[in-house]
Structures are given as C-alpha cells and as structure tokens.
C-alpha cells in the first residue's frame, strides 16, 4: 500500500480527529446515560414487586389448598352424611351429596363408600371436573369407626397455577438482570462503542477515499510541475472534476501551454533571425557580380563584328538568357535583402476596423501586380470588419505587409484554379473573446494538411518561382505582435489563414 502523501496524512488526521472527538465525547456521556437509564428500568424495587407477586400467587394456592382440606373435613363431619352412611340410606345420601355439591363450589364430586368399599352414593358436577382448566385433588375422610368413608374431589381453577409459574420465570429472569446490572449496562456501552467504531471506520475509509481523490490529483500536479521544471512542456494534466483542484489543474495546463507557445515563439524568432542573417549575406554576395555579368554579356554581343548569322543568333540567345537569369537573381536578391532588412515591429494603439479599411485600399495594387485589372478582375477580393471598435496594438505597416503577402498568395492560388473568373478571396476582421482575429480565406486549391505547419518555415515553398519567404515574414510579424497564425482549410474549400493578436487591454492604451 502506498504511503499517503503529506497532505493526505493531514487530511486523514483531520478526518480521524473529526470522527473520534464526538465518539469519545458521546461514549463518556453515553456510558453514564445508559447505565442510569438501565438502572431506572431494572432496579431492586421492581424486583421486590415481582417477588411479592410470586409470593402472592403462592399464598393464594396455599389458601386454595387449605380451603380444600377444610371443605373435605367439613363434609367428613357432616352429621346427615354420617348418619345416612351408617344407615346405608342411599336415597338420603344422594340428596345429601347433591346438597354438598351445591354448597361447595370447589367440590367437583363426592363419593360415599361403606366399609367394604361399595359405593353407597355419589354426586358429580361435570363442569367442575374439566381438567383442562381446573386442578383436581382427592381427599378421603372417615364417616364412622367401621370403615365407611367419603371421598371428596376438590377442584381449583388452573389459571393461578400457570400464572404462578409464569410469574416465577419472569421474576427469576428479572432478578438475574438486576444481579447483572453492571454487566448489561456495560454490554450496552461496549456495543454502542463498537458500533461507533464501525461508523468511524466507515467514515475514515470514506475520508481516505475522498482525500485520495484530491491528493492523487495534487500529486499528479506536483509530478507534472517537476517535468516542466526539467523542460518538458508537453505535459498535460487531465482536469475532469469540477472543483478548486480542477481549476488549479486547468490554470497549470494554461500556464504550460503559454510557456510552450512562448518558447516556440522565441525559437521561431531566433530561427528567423538566423535566416535573415543568411539572407543578408547571400544577397550581398550575389548582388555584386550581377551587374558585371550582365554588362560583360552585353559587351560580348556588342563587340561581335562577324558575318555569321547563326553564331550571331546563338550569341543573342545567350545574352538574352543571361540577362533574364540576372533579372531573376536580382529579384531574388531584392527579396532576400528585403527579408534580411525586415525591421522589428513597433506596436501602437490602433483600431482593427481602420486597419482593415486601410488594407482594402491596397487591394487594386495587389491585383495589378497579379496582372489583373482592379475593375474587372477574375478574382473577387473583399475586405470586411466587425462594426464597432476593436482596439489592438499593432505595427500597421508590418502587419499590412504580412496581410499583403497572404492576399497575394491567395489571389495567385485562386487564379490558378479559377482562371476564367469565380475566384474569391475574403479578408475579415473581428473580435473573438480576448483576441482580434484577421482571417484570409479563398476558394483556391488549399494547402495539404501535412504542410500546414511547414508553410511558415523560411524557404519552404511549393511554387516553382517562390522564395519561401512570404509566409515566414507573416509569422515573424504576427509573433512580434504576441499573436499566432494558423493555416487550415476554409469553408469555401481553399486555404484559410487565421491571425490572432491580443486585444488591447483597457489600461494599456498608451
């Protein structure tokens, strides 16, 4: 099992303290409360009451028994019964016994026998002889000295006997409870304590589980921070929850992304700087011999005095080629030189709407340079911008140069695919959250997805006569505006370049 982190231990400690404090407090209070409550319910006074109830039943049964003996004695001494028994007067005896039954409710039957054991008379009250709810007791009493006797069957209700036993059982268990007061109260306390411990254990488990969710994410953040510290800016920590840790994670991810973009920007600018230096030297080295080469070629042609028309034609072709290639080289040198001398952007407050308006005025010039008449061009170039101020800090000249490059590329691209008209280039400006967005899209052939990031590298070009510097200049200018430029496929199917530059903050207008 992994050892909990420091914050995890602190959280666990907090959970344990929060859970255990009430447990200890309630156990101390509960122990006394439970004992007192138990003693109130189970106490010797009630036990004595129960004992007296049992004794009461016992005395009652004894009384029933004494009454039975007294009744039997009374019947044995009954003069009429004795006399009629001696006389063996069966009819009179039967009357006597019926009288006895009606006189004594606790007598169920009476039998008189002579000395030989012969029954002289008997009487019975069947309802009193039902042993399901009555107890029966037989008692014999002598009626004379000769051996005649009367047998009296005495009865008593069964209920007091059953109640006596039940009361005895209850009293016995209760007296045991009284004797075990401390034990029972302690069982209550310890059971309560054990259950509370279970509750604490569950709470601790939940606490651990919940704190793990937080500490694990904090640990991930710490680990990601260490990776960033070692220079790995590709780190991304997932932030799935909706809480403060998730906010922290999101902020961390944003920070790493900003750092990554910032580093990319710096690296790109460094690379561009190196390429600018290279371009400057190259332009310098190439530019100087161009004029002598061209002059020398023209001189050779001018000095030829011969009559050989074939040779003269060959010479003229060679001079024309040299002149054309020198012109191409001169154009390259101009572009290299221009790239090398590209100044750093000096940002000033401006409105994007004004900028786009200014840009639209340069569209005819761009179209003319592409061999199109501005009034009847095969390409429809539109500039539009969101109404209302969009404050930005820009170097208008540099940014216009960048946009010029993009528009020129777009015009050339749509003319290739729509040489007979129908080409469209749209330049739009608008606000997008904290950014000002400039978009140049066309309905040309577009840029392959795998080339979308390479197109901004210096000297990367897909055109036969391109220098690969135009988009590099665009990216450099945009980066110097603390912005970003991306290339993808637009809605019209052609290329779409999206330039985002930060909106000017309200307090940084100067």
């Amino acid at each position, binding site marked *: 099992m992994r050892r909990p982190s420091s914050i995890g231990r602190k959280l666990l400690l907090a959970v344990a303290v929060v859970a255990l404090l009430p447990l200890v407090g309630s156990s101390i209070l509960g122990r006394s409360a439970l004992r007192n409550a138990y003693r109130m319910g189970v106490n010797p006074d009630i036990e004595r009451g129960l004992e007296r109830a049992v004794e009461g039943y016992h005395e009652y*049964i004894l009384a029933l028994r004494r009454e039975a003996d007294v009744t039997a004695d009374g019947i044995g001494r009954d003069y009429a019964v004795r006399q009629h028994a001696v006389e063996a007067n069966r009819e009179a005896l039967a009357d006597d016994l019926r009288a006895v039954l009606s006189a004594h409710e606790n007598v169920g039957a009476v039998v008189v026998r002579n000395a030989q054991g012969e029954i002289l008379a008997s009487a019975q009250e069947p309802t009193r002889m039902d042993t399901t709810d009555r107890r029966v007791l037989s008692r014999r009493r002598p009626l004379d000295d000769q051996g005649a006797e009367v047998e009296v069957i005495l009865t008593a209700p069964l209920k007091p006997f059953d109640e006596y036993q039940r009361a005895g*059982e209850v009293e016995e268990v209760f007296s045991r409870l009284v004797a075990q007061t401390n034990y*029972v109260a302690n069982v209550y306390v310890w059971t309560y304590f054990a259950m509370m411990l279970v509750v604490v254990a569950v709470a601790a488990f939940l606490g651990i589980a919940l704190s793990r969710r937080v500490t694990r994410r904090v640990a991930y953040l710490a680990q990601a921070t260490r990776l960033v510290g070692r220079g790995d800016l590709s780190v991304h920590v997932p932030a799935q929850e909706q809480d403060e840790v998730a906010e922290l994670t999101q902020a961390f991810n944003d920070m790493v992304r900003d750092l990554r973009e910032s580093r990319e920007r710096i690296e790109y600018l460094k690379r561009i700087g190196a390429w600018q230096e290279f371009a400057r030297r190259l332009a310098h080295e190439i530019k100087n011999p161009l004029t002598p080469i061209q002059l020398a070629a023209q001189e050779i042609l001018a000095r030829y005095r011969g009559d050989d028309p074939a040779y003269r034609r060959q010479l003229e072709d060679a001079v024309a080629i040299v002149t054309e290639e020198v012109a191409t080289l001169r154009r390259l040198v101009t572009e290299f030189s221009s790239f090398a001398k590209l100044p750093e952007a000096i940002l000033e407050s401006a409105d994007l709407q004004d900028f786009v308006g200014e840009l639209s005025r340069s569209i005819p010039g761009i179209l003319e340079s592409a061999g199109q008449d501005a009034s009847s061009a095969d390409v429809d170039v539109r500039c539009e911008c969101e109404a209302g101020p969009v404050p930005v800090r820009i170097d208008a000249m540099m940014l216009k140069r960048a946009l010029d490059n993009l528009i020129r590329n777009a015009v050339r691209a749509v003319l290739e695919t729509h040489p007979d008209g129908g080409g469209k280039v749209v330049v739009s400006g608008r606000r997008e959250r904290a950014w000002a967005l400039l978009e140049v899209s066309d309905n040309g052939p577009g840029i392959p997805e795998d080339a979308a990031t390479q197109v901004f590298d210096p000297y990367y070009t897909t055109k036969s006569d391109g220098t690969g510097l135009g988009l590099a200049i665009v990216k450099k200018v945009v980066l110097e505006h603390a912005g970003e430029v991306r290339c993808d496929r637009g809605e019209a199917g052609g290329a779409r370049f999206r330039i985002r530059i930060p909106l000017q903050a309200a307090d940084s207008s100067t």
Partner: protein
Amino acid sequence: MKRRSLLTLWLALTLGVVTLVSAQELAQREVGVRWQDGVPRVSFSARDLVTPTARHQLESGLRKQFVVTVQAYREHGGSPLATRRFACSVYWDVWEEVYWLRLGNRPEPMQRLEAVLTRCLDVHDIAVGRASDYEGRSGEHVYFAVHAEFNPVSAAQCRALLRPGGGGESLGPVVINIVRRQICQAESAVSFRSASEAVP
C-alpha cells in the same frame, strides 16, 4: 491461495489447542462405562450440582430444571463423536404436595426430593450416541465429558422473556443477543470427564 491455506492451518491449530486445553481443564471423575452392542453406556453422579440454595429453590414451588449433557470425544480432541442430552424438569406441587418430575414426556409424582435428585442426577447406564458413531474407531481412545446444569433458562423461554424493545432501535437486538447468553445461563453447573476408554 497460499495465504488462505495458512489461515486455515492457523484456525485449525487454534481450534485444536483450544479443544485440548478445554479437555485438559476438565476434572476427571469416576464415570462407569459399559459397551453394549457397540454403544457406550455411562453411569455417573452429578449430585454435587445441588447446592443448599438450589435445594431451597427446588422446594419453592416454582419449576426448575436440570440439564445434563454427555459427549464422547476422541482423546486427542476434535469435535464430539456423539452427544446425549436430557432435561429433568421438577417442581414442588403446593396443591397436591408432591414433586412432579418430568423426564421425557410423562410427568411422574415423587414424594421426596432425594428421590427426585437420584432420578435426575444419579445417572445409570445411559447410551451416548449410536453404534454408527463409533464404527471404525476400534482401539481409539475416547473419553466422556459430562456437563450438568441447574436451571438454565431455555433458549425459547429466554427469547420470550428477553425481547428487544420496539421502535427500530439499532442497539437493541445486538445487546439482547449478548445479554441473553449471560442472563439465561445456568445458575450452577458442574463439568467433569471420564478416564480414557478404548473403543472395543
């Protein structure tokens, strides 16, 4: 798997040790053992279970009970091979002035307490288990453990008398179950064992 085996072994050892210790703790007493048709028949007396207090209670008129349990164990421990248990319910009937003894299904009256005690606690020739319980154990040493209790409250009676209170209390049922064990146990008890006997 290995962990589970170790746990099982540990439990078995603990159980064995506990059984051995509990068997060794039993005092040995004169217990007659006679084997008949492969079944042991044992005779012993547990009269010392009846203390003066118990005697007084037996004369009170309230129903009391003796419960005698005899179990056959292998000498080296383990679970019982066979068990024989009987209960002797006694009360002094104030109405008829006799002791009523119920040993089995039919109650029988007795005039004297001594006769009751003799009948309940002087045990003669009772069979412990069936022949099948001892089959294949010839020559194995066994002993008989006797546990005689005076007036334990029966489980059913205990449940009836000690019930958890209503109202869905969480502690009630748990506590009642623990308390029942203590409250309903016998008022007094004696335990002893026989000498070791080889199964014939």
